[in-house]
C-alpha cells in the first residue's frame, strides 16, 4: 500500500514537471523543469529496480543534457521573441493533440496487454555471469554478452563529436570552443569549482571500479568526470582545450581503440571477435572500462562545448 502511494506520487510529480517543461513559455523555465524531471526520473528507475540506469539518467539525462540546453538557450535568448510569432494556430494544435492522444492510447493498450509470464533473459544472463568474474549483471551484458553493441556505442560518441566539429567555420579550425569565461575569483561558482572536483574525481574512480560488481560503470564515471571538467571551465578557472591537440584527440579515441584492440585479439587467442581470453575476462573488462571512462568523460564534455569558435591564441 505504501509502495503504491510512493510510486503513484512519484509518477504524478514527474508527469507534472514534464508537462511544465513542454507547456511553459519561457525557455529557461522549461530547461530547469527538464533538469528536475531528469532527477525525478532517476528515482523512477530506482523504483523500477535499476540503480545503474538511475545513475545514468540522473547524471546524463538530467545533468549534462540540462547543461547543454542551458548553454544553447543563453545564446538563443534574443531569438525567443521572434519565435513566438511563428506559433501555430489553435486548429493545428488541436490536430496535434488528437494525434498524440491517439498514440498514447495505443501505447497504453500495448502496455496493458504485455504477455504473461513476461519473457526474460535474466536467467540466461545470471547463468553465464560467473564465467565473466563480474558481479554486476548489467556490466556483464554491456561488456561481455553484448560487447559489440557497447563498442559501437562508444564509436557513436566519437562520430557525434566529428559531426559537431564538422560544423566549424574554416577560420576557427583547431581553435578553442565556447566564449572566454571571465573568472570571478570570489564567486560561488569558482568556490564550488575548487571544492567539488577532488570529490567528483574520487567518486568517478569509485563508480568505475565498483561497476564490476555493484551499480556503476564507465558511463556513470565518465559523465561525472565530464561534469567536473565543465564546472571548472564554466567558472573560468581553466580555459577550454585547443581542439587540435594530439593528446586531446588520443584521449577521445583511447576507449574505442582499446575496446577494438581487445575485441580483435579475441579472434587470435580466443574463440572469436570480442571473445575474451579465458582466465583474463575480468582483466580485459576492467582495462576496457578504464580506457572508456577517460574517453567518455572527455568526449561528453567536448560534445557540450561544441565546435571551436575562437583561435587557439587570443
Amino acid at each position: 500500500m505504501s509502495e503504491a502511494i510512493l510510486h503513484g506520487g512519484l509518477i504524478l510529480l514527474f508527469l507534472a514537471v514534464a508537462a511544465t517543461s513542454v507547456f511553459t513559455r519561457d525557455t529557461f523555465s522549461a530547461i530547469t523543469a527538464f533538469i528536475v524531471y531528469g532527477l525525478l526520473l532517476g528515482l523512477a528507475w530506482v523504483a523500477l529496480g535499476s540503480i545503474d540506469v538511475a545513475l545514468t539518467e540522473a547524471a546524463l539525462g538530467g545533468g549534462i543534457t540540462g547543461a547543454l540546453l542551458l548553454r544553447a538557450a543563453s545564446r538563443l535568448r534574443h531569438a525567443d521573441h521572434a519565435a513566438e510569432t511563428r506559433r501555430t494556430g489553435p486548429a493545428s494544435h488541436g490536430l496535434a493533440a488528437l494525434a498524440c492522444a491517439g498514440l498514447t492510447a495505443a501505447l497504453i493498450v500495448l502496455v496493458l496487454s504485455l504477455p504473461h509470464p513476461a519473457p526474460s533473459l535474466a536467467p540466461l544472463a545470471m547463468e553465464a555471469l560467473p564465467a565473466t568474474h563480474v558481479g554486476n549483471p548489467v556490466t556483464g551484458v554491456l561488456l561481455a554478452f553484448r560487447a559489440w553493441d557497447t563498442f559501437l556505442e562508444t564509436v557513436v560518441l566519437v562520430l557525434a563529436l566529428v559531426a559537431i566539429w564538422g560544423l566549424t567555420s574554416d577560420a576557427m579550425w583547431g581553435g578553442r570552443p565556447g566564449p572566454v569565461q571571465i573568472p570571478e575569483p570570489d564567486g560561488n561558482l569558482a568556490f564550488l569549482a575548487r571544492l567539488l572536483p577532488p570529490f567528483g574525481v574520487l567518486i568517478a574512480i569509485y563508480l568505475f571500479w565498483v561497476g564490476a560488481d555493484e551499480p556503476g560503470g564507465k558511463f556513470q564515471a565518465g559523465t561525472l568526470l565530464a561534469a567536473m571538467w565543465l564546472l571548472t571551465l564554466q567558472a573560468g578557472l581553466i580555459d577550454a582545450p585547443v581542439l587540435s591537440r594530439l593528446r586531446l584527440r588520443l584521449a577521445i579515441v583511447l576507449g574505442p581503440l582499446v575496446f577494438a584492440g581487445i575485441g580483435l585479439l579475441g579472434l587470435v587467442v580466443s574463440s572469436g571477435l570480442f571473445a575474451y581470453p579465458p582466465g583474463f575476462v575480468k582483466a580485459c573488462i576492467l582495462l576496457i572500462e578504464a580506457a572508456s571512462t577517460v574517453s567518455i568523460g572527455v568526449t561528453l564534455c567536448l560534445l557540450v562545448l561544441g565546435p571551436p569558435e575562437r583561435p587557439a591564441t587570443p
Partner: protein
Amino acid sequence: MNTTEWFGIAAALLIGLGLFGVITHPMLLRKILAFNLVGTGVFLLFGVIARRGAAAGIDGDPVPHAFVITGIVVAFSASALAVTMALKLKSDTGESTFPDDPPADAPDPAAPPRP
C-alpha cells in the same frame, strides 16, 4: 494492476506529451527538449519490460537495462549534435525556428525547370 504497469502508462503519457511538444513548439531548442522527453518515455517502457522480466534473483532483466544505458548516451550525443546545428542555423541566418513553408502554389526553387 500493479505499480509497474503505472510506470508503463506514465511512459505512454510522456511519449504523447513529448511528441506534442515536438510538433507544436516553433523554437528548435524546445523541439529538441521535447524530443528528449519522448526518448525518456521510450526508455521507461524498456524499464517496465525489464521489471516484468525480473527473475533469477535480480530485480529486472539486465539486457534491457544495458540497452537503456547505451540508449541514454546515444540520445545525448544526438541532442548535442542537434543543439550545435540549431546554434549554427542561428549564427548563419539569425533564425531559431524552421523557415515558414512556402505557399502551396509557389514554384519550388529546387525543382528542375519544366521542359
